[in-house]
């Protein structure tokens, strides 16, 4: 090589030979080489281009198409959740939404601040968003705000040129007209998290901006029915994601509606009627088993959760000792107290005890070698009086006589400890204590005082409000009524007769006397001449007498107030239960049942009573929730702790706490639980109900 290029070593030694002509020679030879190299590179380029354009044409053509055409899913409109009269409990609202694509934001913080200012988002929401955007992965859109009106949308749209990575969209958002009244029942929707995405085999729909799945309650349970089929849109897009034109569109198919047995107005009424208290109301239709209402309050507003649970909101709900995140109908367990007495009487009747057989209550009764107090001195007591006067001695005596196993069998037959086949995420099924159960669980034998405790619904006894309502329906009808929550399930249990009609009639009458006769709930009478409500009061102790008298002192030590009921007495149509946590006694519960039943038969009359109360309380439940939120955010907005990142963690924690709370009352079951004077309700609403503490004054 070097030889013909004229640069070989010899050249240097023969230096003098270098002349103009040898240089010219060198130039010529070398320029040929350079020309050849240039030609070679030219050929290389042509070959490379041929390779790209011919051999790999297919591949690059596809890539070019996938650049140009963007297939975007149109999130299907979610199916509605309807009440029994087809009124929507959850519907969709056409609105505008703003997403940001974190990877395209030049200055995320500044952009969020700017959007926040335009849409007047509150500072806590802005802080949440910044955290979320920081943690998000590049090009996955993050929802900034939804439910915008047209003016806000327009204000944002005109500023788009300076706001790269901000994407305003039209869409639908979930809307719950009765807001917090249905929070626990319906649940809420939210964007899918990473696990849900993986669980559904990376279904691209789940990560489509603005698409939300059910996160709790019925929204989660009926997810697949409600979801629908996504539409698709093929659009030509620029590199920055701007849509140039539509190529092809397939409409979405809306999800199936789910029809519930719930009576929407009743649900809302009951939720609002609970007022400042913490509690639940269940109403069932005795003729079909339809659950007409399962209200649990205080609650959260599912409308605001669909944007994600804000940290201020979470902190506020979390600090409230009335645990607004817990569905108390299904996950509140309470000692049923005296509400079990009619059902226990049914057990005595079944065991052959005549209703006319009397015992003498001397302010208590000796069982074995120990004297157990009754809440009052009732003198001579037969079965009816034992129910309407709620005499404890009677139950100490006959439970001891027939043995508690027989009583427990009856309890289980009427729905205590039963898990119902309902489409709910989870339900607690409580405890019906028996000697075997106690030995298994605690390794201690059953003592006489256990029978005494259990015979009046204390001790280890635990039931949920739903179970109390079912028990009430079964006692009222004598049939094995099974609750149902959706219209497309068949009513069940009506062909199974649990109790003979004379037993049923006797118990009905005694329960009617509780309200309409010389009983413990005299102020629970319905304001109708022709419709009577029957019921049974209950007061459940949660701590021993040495800690609290159950009526005053710290809210969480106060007695639960319970009331089970059915109406009308002569031909029961509705049955239900009201449980007011720490209400101080059953007096907190039965006025609610009375008003709910009043509303059932005469809505105008019911609302009249409620409106008067709500004026004292400072608005409807939803208005109070909003006011509280605003006050809390103003006061504490800066110092709240961030909520867990996954909604599931929040509800797992709520559930775990619910279990602990449920077992609280069992802690005092080691001892005889001296019963309280039953019909009283005392004390004030929980301290952090946060608004003027005026009570309805019914309960004295």
């Amino acid at each position, binding site marked *: 090589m070097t030889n013909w290029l004229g640069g070989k070593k010899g050249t*240097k030694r023969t230096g003098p030979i270098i002349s103009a002509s040898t240089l010219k020679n060198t130039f010529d030879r070398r*320029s040929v080489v350079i020309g050849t190299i240039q030609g070679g590179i030219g050929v290389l380029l042509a070959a490379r281009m041929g390779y790209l354009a011919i051999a790999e044409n297919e591949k690059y053509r596809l890539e070019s198409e996938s650049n*140009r055409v963007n297939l975007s899913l149109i999130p299907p409109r979610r199916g509605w959740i309807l009440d029994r009269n087809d009124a929507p409990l959850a519907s969709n609202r056409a609105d505008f939404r703003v997403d940001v694509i974190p990877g395209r934001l030049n200055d995320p913080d500044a952009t969020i601040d700017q959007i926040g200012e335009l849409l007047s988002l509150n500072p806590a929401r802005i802080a949440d968003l910044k955290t979320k955007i920081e943690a998000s992965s590049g090009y996955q859109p993050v929802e900034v705000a939804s439910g915008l009106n047209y003016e806000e949308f327009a204000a944002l749209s005109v500023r788009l040129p300076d706001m790269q990575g901000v994407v305003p969209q039209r869409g639908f958002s979930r809307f719950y007209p009765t807001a917090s009244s249905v929070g626990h029942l319906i649940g809420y929707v939210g964007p899918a998290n990473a696990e849900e995405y993986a669980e559904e085999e990376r279904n691209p729909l789940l990560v489509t901006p603005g698409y939300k799945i059910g996160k709790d309650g019925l929204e989660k349970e009926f997810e697949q029915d409600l979801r629908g089929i996504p539409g698709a849109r093929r659009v030509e897009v620029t590199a920055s994601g701007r849509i140039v034109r539509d190529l092809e569109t397939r409409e979405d198919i809306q999800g199936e509606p789910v029809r519930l047995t719930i009576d929407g107005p009743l649900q809302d009424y009951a939720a609002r009627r609970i007022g400042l208290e913490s509690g639940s109301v269940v109403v069932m239709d005795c003729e079909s088993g339809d659950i007409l209402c399962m209200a649990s309050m205080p609650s959260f507003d599912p409308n605001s959760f669909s944007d994600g649970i804000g940290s201020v909101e979470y902190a506020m709900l979390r600090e409230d000792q009335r645990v607004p995140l817990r569905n108390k109908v299904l996950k509140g367990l309470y000692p049923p107290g005296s509400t079990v007495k009619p059902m226990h009487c049914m057990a005595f009747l079944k065991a052959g005890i005549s209703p006319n057989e009397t015992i003498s209550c001397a302010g208590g009764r000796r069982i074995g070698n120990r004297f157990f107090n009754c809440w009052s001195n009732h003198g001579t007591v037969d079965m009816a009086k034992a129910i309407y006067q709620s005499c404890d001695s009677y139950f100490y005596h006959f439970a001891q006589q027939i043995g508690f196993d027989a009583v427990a069998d009856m309890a289980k037959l009427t729905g205590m400890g039963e898990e119902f086949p309902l489409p709910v995420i989870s339900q607690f099924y409580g405890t019906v204590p028996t000697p075997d159960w106690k030995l298994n669980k605690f390794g201690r034998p059953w003592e006489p005082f256990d029978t005494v405790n259990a015979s009046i619904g204390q001790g280890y006894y635990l039931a949920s409000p739903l179970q109390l309502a079912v028990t009430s329906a079964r006692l009222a009808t004598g049939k094995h009524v099974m609750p149902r929550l959706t219209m497309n399930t068949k009513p069940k249990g009506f062909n199974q007769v649990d109790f003979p009609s004379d037993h049923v009639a006797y118990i009905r009458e005694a329960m009617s006397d509780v309200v309409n006769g010389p009983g413990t709930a005299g102020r629970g009478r319905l304001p109708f001449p022709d419709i009577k409500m029957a019921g049974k009061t209950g007061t459940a102790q949660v701590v021993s007498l040495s800690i609290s008298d159950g009526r005053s002192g710290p809210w969480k030590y106060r007695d639960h107030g319970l009331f089970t009921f059915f109406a009308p007495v002569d031909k029961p149509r509705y049955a239900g239960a009201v449980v007011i946590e720490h209400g101080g006694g059953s007096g907190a519960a039965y006025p609610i049942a009375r008003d709910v039943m009043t509303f059932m038969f005469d809505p105008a009359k019911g609302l009249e009573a409620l409106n008067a109360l709500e004026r004292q309380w400072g608005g409807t439940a939803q208005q109070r929730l909003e006011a509280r939120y605003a006050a809390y955010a103003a006061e504490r907005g800066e110092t709240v702790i961030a909520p867990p990142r996954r909604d599931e963690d929040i509800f797992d924690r709520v559930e775990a706490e619910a279990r602990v709370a449920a077992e609280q009352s069992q802690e005092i079951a080691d001892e005889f639980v001296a019963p309280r004077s039953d019909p009283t309700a005392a004390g004030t609403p929980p301290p952090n109900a946060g608004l003027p503490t005026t009570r309805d004054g019914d309960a004295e």
Partner: protein
Amino acid sequence: MSSVVPAPIARQPWGMLIPLFMLVAFGAAVLYSAAGGSMTPFASSHLIRFSVFLVMAAVITSLPREFVRLMTYPAYLVVLILLVAVEAMGALRGGSQRWLDLGFMVLQPSELMKPVIVVTLAQFYSTLPVGMITGWRALLLPGAIIAVPMAMVLMQPDLGTSLAIAFGGAVVMLLAGLPLRWFVIGGAAAIVATPLAFFFGLKEYQQRRVMTMFDPEADALGAGYHITQSKIAIGSGGLFGKGFNNGSQSHLNYLPEPHTDFVFATMAEEWGLVGGLFVIAVFSIILRWGLKVARESRDRFASLLAAGMVATIFFYIAVNLLMVMGMAPVVGIPLPFMSHGGSSMLTNMICLGVLMMVNRWNRNAPRGGLSG
């Protein structure tokens, strides 16, 4: 030539000029498409600049040899001062500024340095006594002549232009007859120095660009984006392309810089392999003509000058095309006569003007000229 055509016109190197005009017109068409089907802002200014610089090239063509030789060193000094001036102005304004605003275009002095370095070295070697060509003096001073502007441009920092300056200078040195083993040693030293320079000399973004060349898909949305999109544009064009004004890569902004550095990809998407071969063919014609001019000259100054100019144009073409096809790192070097941009058009038209000037000298004093 036939007598119908006037002699001054018939004299022109039409074999090169006609393909050049076709290329520029083709470039204007591509720029028309890159602007979304509009003459403004790219295509019309492209044509106007070409026309203006064609006049300038004609002026250069008419320059006498002695004048050029006389002006060489002063020109070198002026451009060097300009380089220092923009550097100083940039420092004063607290940013890096590489250009002077001339009103109708912005001028980068570093661009001017590319042809000027070639003239300067051609002048140096043509005046160097023949016997000294193998001595150290033949290396040292030209080395300094190249190194100073290179260093200035590197400081800007503009790796592409400084390499172009080095390349033009090196080709002139090679053709001047410097001992080949110097180039072998230099090449070996460069191979050793490259990794060192890569890891210690280059800025992080430059390193990434180089790494990207080897695996563009590794970071398809980051540094590899340019190359990936450029290959998609070229590859999706196929044999005949997607048709004029139908390139989706360029029209939907997937292709970065569709009117400057990646104009070839814009073209290839719409005109396919056929268009690409046409462009490569025209460049071959121009470069071959240039080398022929260089070889035909008996004048050592003129032949070195011409060959150096060819090398400068070639460097633009080769690096740009290798880059858009994913075989060279992304360095900001436009494609001559097609990319929209005043500075590169200026440089390339100076080179072309010089080539036509040498061609004229050849005609006036054919083979076996006076000096050597």
